[in-house]
């Protein structure tokens, strides 16, 4: 007789992963130290499902791991070459869509978008660059908003609302014209309630929102993802991309 298996488990790439009621595939994976590439997800925030990077094949269906509830017996394909190459294409779409300049971006080395691109072995944008015209908000002395680098993950929107209790950010527009806007009379950061230590700035997975007070305080080469790829860092910490003091 086969041994009765524990009722609360899913399988990710043949590995048994325990989960508790109400957890998503992503949460179960993170708890077990299994990395599923992601950008718009961060532990502690409501699942969003917009970047689609964490798409997995769960019992034959393509779903985003961050929004899909774990269910007993679910067979999840995660780290397959097919999925990884499609995830690379998703990251390439993000690079082609915005205006990203890693070599001279202040966030380089602490940037999750860059780190995930390295980890997925991305060498070029592959798709035609869109070169959108986006505006920069440098009105605030301590916080910079560079929309060129924004990937519309809404982490700052959620953090400002749920954590900072301020509602500084929102997405506006539609389709390719979707852009991050600021909640203030002038629409500028300087007139908003933002402060440099807000969670909304820390959660940004790219260089779209940055604390301007400590530029390059950690030299290139010693930053979070400079030496250890994102997929090998503790999954629980993968969202913590703050510059180390």
């Amino acid at each position, binding site marked *: 007789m086969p041994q009765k298996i524990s009722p609360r488990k899913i399988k990710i790439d043949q590995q048994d992963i325990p989960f508790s009621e109400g957890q998503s595939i992503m949460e179960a994976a993170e708890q077990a130290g299994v990395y599923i590439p992601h950008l718009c997800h961060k532990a502690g925030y409501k*699942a*969003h*499902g*917009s*970047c*689609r*990077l964490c*798409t997995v094949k769960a019992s034959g269906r*393509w779903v*985003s791991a961050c*929004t899909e*509830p774990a269910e007993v017996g679910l067979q999840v394909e995660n780290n397959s070459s097919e999925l990884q190459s*499609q995830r690379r*294409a*998703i990251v390439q*779409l*993000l690079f*082609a*869509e915005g205006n990203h300049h890693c070599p001279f971006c202040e966030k380089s080395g602490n940037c999750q978008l860059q780190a995930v691109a390295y980890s997925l072995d991305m060498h070029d944008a*592959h*798709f*035609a660059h*869109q070169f959108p015209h986006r505006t920069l908000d440098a009105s605030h002395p301590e916080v910079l908003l560079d929309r060129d680098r924004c*990937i*519309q993950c809404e982490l700052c929107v959620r953090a400002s609302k749920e954590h900072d209790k301020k*509602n500084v*950010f*929102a*997405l*506006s*527009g*539609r*389709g*390719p*014209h*979707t852009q991050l*806007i*600021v*909640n*203030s*009379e002038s*629409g500028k950061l300087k007139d908003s309630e933002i402060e440099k230590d807000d969670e909304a700035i820390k959660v940004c997975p790219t260089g779209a929102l940055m604390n301007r007070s400590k530029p390059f305080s950690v030299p290139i080469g010693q930053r979070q993802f400079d030496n250890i790829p994102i997929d090998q860092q503790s999954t629980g910490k993968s969202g913590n991309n703050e510059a180390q003091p």
Partner: protein
Amino acid sequence: MDTNSDSNLLKALEAESWSLISDNALNRFQRSPHHALQMLIYLQAALGYIPPALQRQIARDLQLPITHIQGLVAFYFFLSAEKLGTYRIYISNNITDKMLDAATLTECLCQQLNVSLGCPREDEKVYIEQTSCIGLSDQGPSCLINGLSIPSLNEERIRQIVSLIESDTELSLWPKSLFETSDSIQRKGWLLDNTTSPGESLRQALKIGDEKSLALLEKSALRGRGGAGFPTAKKWRFCKGTPAEKHVVVCNADEGEPGTFKDRVLLRQHCDLILEGMTICARLIGAELGFIYLRAEYLNLLPDLEKTLQKWRDNNLLGQAILGNEGFNFDIEIHLGAGAYICGEESALIESLEGKRGIPRNRPPFPVSEGYLSYPTVVNNVETFAMAARIFGKEGDSFSQLGTEQSKGTKLLSISGDTPKPGIYEFPWGVTIQEIILASGAKNTYFVQVGGPAGELLDQSQFKRTLCYEDVATGGSFMIFNAERNPLEIILNFTQFFAHESCGFCTPCRVGTQLNHQLFEKISTQGAAPSDIEKLEELNLLMDRFSHCGLGKTASHIVKQGLAQFHKKLKPGDDNWSPDFDLDKSLSTARKLRIIDTGAN
């Protein structure tokens, strides 16, 4: 909307009395933030635009972040923060309109009014823009003027419009004949032949009781007519079975699938059946709150709908203690859309009903358990509600004798394109594509597009296939193309549609629909390079698998099918290919700069 309040609002606009205007809008809509979108639609119609200062005032008055109101204005196509013009004309750019030479007429209109497409005229009088299909493919080319539809555009009508505009004639004084649309019903069947009088089906449902009514619906095997085909009784049971303080019924009248217009006709001719279906649903799931989400393009239907609703209330078919049944209270409110195809997706529609941008929600939870304001909600298509009511009416049981094993009853089709008899056709499920084409009188048919750009492209080799959930499922759009049409031009029209209508929430759809269109445009005008085809194939697989909702998933199908069907026209050959890198285009900016900066040479 009464002209008096309009002119008062315009005076207030001139005086920049933002709080006065905001107050007026808020009072009209119960001062509720869930009506924010409805307030903006009202102000857009009254003022022609919603100035940023007014947006800020409304946000303050509703105690919403300013970004919420700004987000709405920038999301919905028919709302604008800039003054566009006293007369705002949106010309339908569906492929069926283009086939009737909408492009020449648009050019003609622009020329006579001395305005360029998408740019307000200097005197702020006229603005002309294109928009996605406005639901008049049977009488195109068509346009909207300040929200009201004008069908059957021709040179004569264009001249008439120009002279009315240049003489500053108020829209309410324009000849009624300009706005008259016909219902063009070509083939009636089980639904359109309905003779049940208003209230009869509801009385029947009340007579047999809730459980037997649900069983009756179950036995009929009615499935959702919006396209997905979910069993209606099952949906209602799920919703009923979710304990909550309130339950909600929503009628999806946001038919935006290019080429479809059957809901327009149903709303005009069988409005009673629709209201009755909703009321029966409300009775069975225990809902007091009902909505009809009417697409902006059907604004001309609003006055009659409101009248019918009032008639229902007067006859105690809506309101408190309906037909004398203590505790059976239900009423229906109409919400307008504002130009967003995505709001036809049920969860995006609910977001829009709540006064938000129409972004599809994550599922689970499904609307039947958490829908409008988190209450369990049934969302059904116009046609589904009409059929549900009809099933309770005279000889309603004949429904399940029609159709196929898994697709019972009939289906309304909106037939347009290369046919001498465009219009509404009702067929039992199981009819073949060939039979439909034959009935429409179309000759020399090359291929048909069933279900709109997101549906299926079927060429002659597939005309034996049958219309049903088991084979070719459809929401009802049926566009016919004859052998003289260029399929690339048609597919390009569809890729443009998706690029325009992607909501922008998820990466694959937001970026993929743009790239798809750009690549297809390049291929259809210059020819393909092998790498173009590879990229299209790669993109479409990605969109199909990785997109957040059905829009992104199905937006890829047309290109995939196009590549498969017309590979000879698309695949690069010895004489029809061009590289994917355009040297001259890439250098054009630099060349321009050289010319401007004469000192640099």
